[in-house]
C-alpha cells in the first residue's frame, strides 16, 4: 500500500498543474489550428473546411509585415548582443561582492509595467520633448527632425524592453567559467584578445544563444513598441494579428497568421532546445 502511494505521489502532485498547462496552453493551440482552417464570420458562425487558403491569402496580404517583424527581431537581438555582452562580462568577472546588486539594477525595469515604460519613452522621444527640444533650439538638429514613427524608434524600444533578457543568460554562462581556465590560457602566452576569442567567447556562446532565443521571440511578436513608437510604415505582424482578433473578429485569418508566426519561431525554439537543452533558459527565467 505504502509502495503504491509512493509511486503515485509524483503523479498526484504534478496532475493539477500539468492539466492546467495541457488544457490552457496545449489544447488552445489545437483549437487555433482548427480555427485557422475554418471559414465564416462572427455573426453567422464558422464552419470547418480544412482548406489552407486562410494561410495563403493572409500570407500574401501581410508578408511585408511578417518579414519586417522578423527583421526587427533579428536586428534587436544583434544590437542586444553587442550592448549586453560587456555588461555581463564586467559583472561576472569584476562585479566582486556587488554582483547581485548590479543584476538587481539591470532588472529594475521589471518592476514597472511594460506599457508604462514604453509610454515614458514616447514622451521622452516626442518631437518637442525633453531630449529633442534642447538639441533643436541649440541648432544641433534640424527643426523637422523626428525620431518617433521610424523603424529606429521601434527597434530602440524593443532593445530597451528586452535588454535584461540578454544580459542575464550571458552573465550565467560567463559566471560558470572557471577562472583557472582563463589563467591557463594566459600562462600559455595567449594575449588577452586571443584568450577572449578562443576561451571566453566560445564558453559564453550557450548564453548568447539563450539570450537570442529570449529576445528574438518576444521582440518579433511584439505590438506594443511599434504601436506606441512607430507609424504605419513600421506595422508589425503582432499589430495585424491583434487587430484581426480584437477589433475585426476575423478569427480564421488571424489564427492562420498567429499560427504561421508560431511555426516560424518554434523552429528556432526547438532547434535551440535540441542543441543546447532547456536548462539555461529555465534557470534565467526563474531569476
Amino acid at each position: 500500500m505504502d509502495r503504491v502511494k509512493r509511486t503515485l505521489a509524483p503523479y498526484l502532485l504534478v496532475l493539477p498543474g500539468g492539466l492546467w498547462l495541457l488544457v490552457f496552453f496545449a489544447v488552445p493551440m489545437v483549437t487555433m489550428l482548427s480555427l485557422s482552417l475554418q471559414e465564416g464570420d462572427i455573426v453567422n458562425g464558422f464552419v470547418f473546411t480544412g482548406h489552407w487558403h486562410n494561410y495563403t491569402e493572409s500570407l500574401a496580404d501581410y508578408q511585408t509585415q511578417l518579414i519586417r517583424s522578423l527583421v526587427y527581431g533579428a536586428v534587436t537581438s544583434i544590437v542586444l548582443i553587442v550592448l549586453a555582452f560587456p555588461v555581463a562580462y564586467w559583472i561576472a568577472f569584476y562585479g566582486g561582492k556587488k554582483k547581485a546588486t548590479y543584476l538587481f539594477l539591470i532588472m529594475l525595469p521589471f518592476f514597472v509595467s511594460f506599457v508604462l515604460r514604453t509610454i515614458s519613452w514616447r514622451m521622452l522621444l516626442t518631437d518637442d520633448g525633453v531630449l529633442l527640444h534642447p538639441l533643436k533650439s541649440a541648432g544641433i538638429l534640424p527643426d523637422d527632425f523626428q525620431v518617433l514613427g521610424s523603424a529606429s524608434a521601434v527597434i530602440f524600444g524593443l532593445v530597451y524592453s528586452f535588454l535584461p533578457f540578454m544580459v542575464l543568460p550571458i552573465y550565467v554562462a560567463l559566471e560558470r567559467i572557471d577562472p583557472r581556465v582563463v589563467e591557463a590560457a594566459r600562462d600559455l602566452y595567449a594575449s588577452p584578445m586571443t584568450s577572449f576569442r578562443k576561451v571566453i567567447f566560445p564558453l559564453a556562446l550557450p548564453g548568447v544563444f539563450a539570450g537570442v532565443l529570449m529576445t528574438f521571440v518576444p521582440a518579433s511578436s511584439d505590438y506594443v513598441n511599434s504601436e506606441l513608437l512607430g507609424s504605419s510604415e513600421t506595422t508589425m505582424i503582432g499589430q495585424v494579428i491583434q487587430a484581426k482578433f480584437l477589433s475585426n473578429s476575423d478569427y480564421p485569418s488571424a489564427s492562420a497568421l498567429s499560427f504561421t508566426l508560431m511555426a516560424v519561431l518554434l523552429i528556432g525554439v526547438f532547434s535551440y532546445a535540441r542543441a543546447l537543452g532547456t536548462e539555461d533558459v529555465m534557470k534565467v527565467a526563474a531569476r
Partner: protein
Amino acid sequence: MNGRGVRLMHVYTWVLIGWLILPITVMILFGFNNPSGRYNQTWQGFTFKWYKDVFALEALTDALVTSLVVAVLTALIAGALGTGIGYALGRWQFKGAGALNLLMFAAISSPELVMGSSLLSLFVSMGASLGAVTITIAHVMFSVSFVAIVVRARVVTLDRSLEEAAADLGATGWTTFWKVIFPIILPAIMSGVMLAFALSIDDFVITNFTAGTTETFPLWIWGATRVGLPPQVNVMGTMIFAAGVLFAVVSNIRSRSKKKVAA
C-alpha cells in the same frame, strides 16, 4: 583585459543602468507634475495633489483593483500548482517528467501573442464569457512553470538524510513533509509566489486577448494613451514600483542574514 579596459566597462555598465532607469525616473517625476491641460508631457511645477487624489478616477481605480485581485488569485493558484510540479520534479524521477519539462519550456518560450490569441480561440469556441476569470486562468497558465522551476531548484539541493533521520525517529511520510521538508522549501515557494504575482500584475499582451471588456491597470493605460494619461497613472505606477523594490530588497536582506546565522 587591462586596467583601462576594465574601467571603461565599469563606466559603460553604469551608463547602461542609467539608460534602463531613465524612463522609470520620468514616470516617477511626472507623478509630481502640475500640468495645466490634459497632457502630462511637459514639466509645469511641483505638486503632491495627485498623491492625495490618487483614487479620484473611478475607472482607473477599478482597473487597479482588478489587477490586484487577479494577481493575488494567480499567486495563490500558480503557487500551489507550481509547488506540486516543482516538488515532484525535484524529488522523484518518473515517467513523463521529460514531457512535462518540455511542456513547461514551451510555455515559457512561446510568444505571448500566440498564447493569448490561442486562448482567445479556445474561449470563443467554448462560448465562455471573457473577464476576470479568464484573465486569471491565463495568468496561472503562464506563471505556473516559473513557480515550478524556482521550487524545483530548491528541492534538488535538499539533504535526503534529513528525511531518513525523521523516519528513524518514527515520523510518517506525511509528518516528515510538513514538519521537516516544507519549512525548508517555504522560502523558495514564497519567491515563486511573489514572481507569479509580479508577472501577473505587469502582464499586458495575454491579458489584452483574454480580458473582453474587463480592464486591468495595464489595459486601462493602453486604452487611455490616445487621450493622454492622467498623473494618477504615474502615481500608481510609482507605488507598484516602490512596493516591488522594497519587497525584493527586504527579502534579500532577510535571506542574507539567515545565511550568516547558518554559517
